[in-house]
């Protein structure tokens, strides 16, 4: 296979990872909302945990995106 074509396919495959991270971030915020609506008074205290979970989850999607960019532009 042409190396340039293989690179583009690889970048496309790496981009799947961002979609998987999207599932994680969606679950995170969805669960937070369902919990927050059950007990709204406890919700503000969990904001830091929410953001921490978001950062850790989102980082993995960003790593996948980074690999895609590296394949595309280097």
């Amino acid at each position, binding site marked *: 296979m042409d190396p340039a074509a293989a690179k583009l396919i690889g970048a496309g495959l790496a981009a799947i990872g961002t979609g998987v991270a999207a599932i994680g971030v969606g679950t995170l915020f969805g669960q937070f909302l369902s919990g927050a609506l059950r007990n709204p008074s406890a919700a503000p205290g969990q904001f830091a945990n929410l*953001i*921490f979970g978001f*950062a850790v989850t*989102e*980082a993995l999607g960003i*790593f996948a995106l*980074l690999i895609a*960019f590296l394949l595309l*532009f280097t």
Partner: protein
Amino acid sequence: MPDPIHQFEIKRILELDLFGIDASFTNSALWMVVAVVLISLLTIWGMGGRALVPNRLQSVAEISYEFIANMVRDIVGVSGMKFFPFVFTIFMFILFLNMLGLLPGAFTATSSISVTAALALLVFFTVIIVGFAKNGLGFLKLFVPSGIPKILLLLVVPIEIISFLSRPVSHSVRLFANMLAGHITLKVFGGFVTMLIGTGGALAAVAIFPLTMALALTALEVLVAFLQAYVFAMLTCMYLHDALHPGH
């Protein structure tokens, strides 16, 4: 399409060679200096009046102080307040670099892995030094979670050590990759606009759609710029908490 990577090119403004090390003043350094000057202006000039009823600038300085002070108190504990200047400096520095990078034509210093890696390593070594200075060899308890069977320790301790060593990597790459990805996406949508207008005719009218998208993405990037600075500072607090209270 214009090359979306071009914006991250480091340009030497002032050539400088220190004993064989290339220490040139670059556009990255220029924007870091701008950030430091703006932060100094905000905090020194803003708090200069020390009015009981703060004006706008003083309010901003006080809100950012309170924001970080609450975070340090919540996560590290009251005993961690001596690290407040450290966390506050890191937060404001990253926040201003991220925000300044959103200005058209500006350089985003946090989109270089060298900058974020330096910040992450600073945090990493601070945690190690503070941890050993405060707890002596007790700091190693960080790698031995209490309340698990002895036999499982063979498995858990290496995992804990690997996760500790990979902290600076994820800490720096998260910020760097977020800024890089955001700016590349903005540039790509900007490229769509110029390409569509360049074709002329009816297609030029379609350029409004990527333009709207670029606008929405810019708004998202403002949020991301703040969020990543917050996340970086919060993780710093969590690592410092580990250094001060290594027992799980």
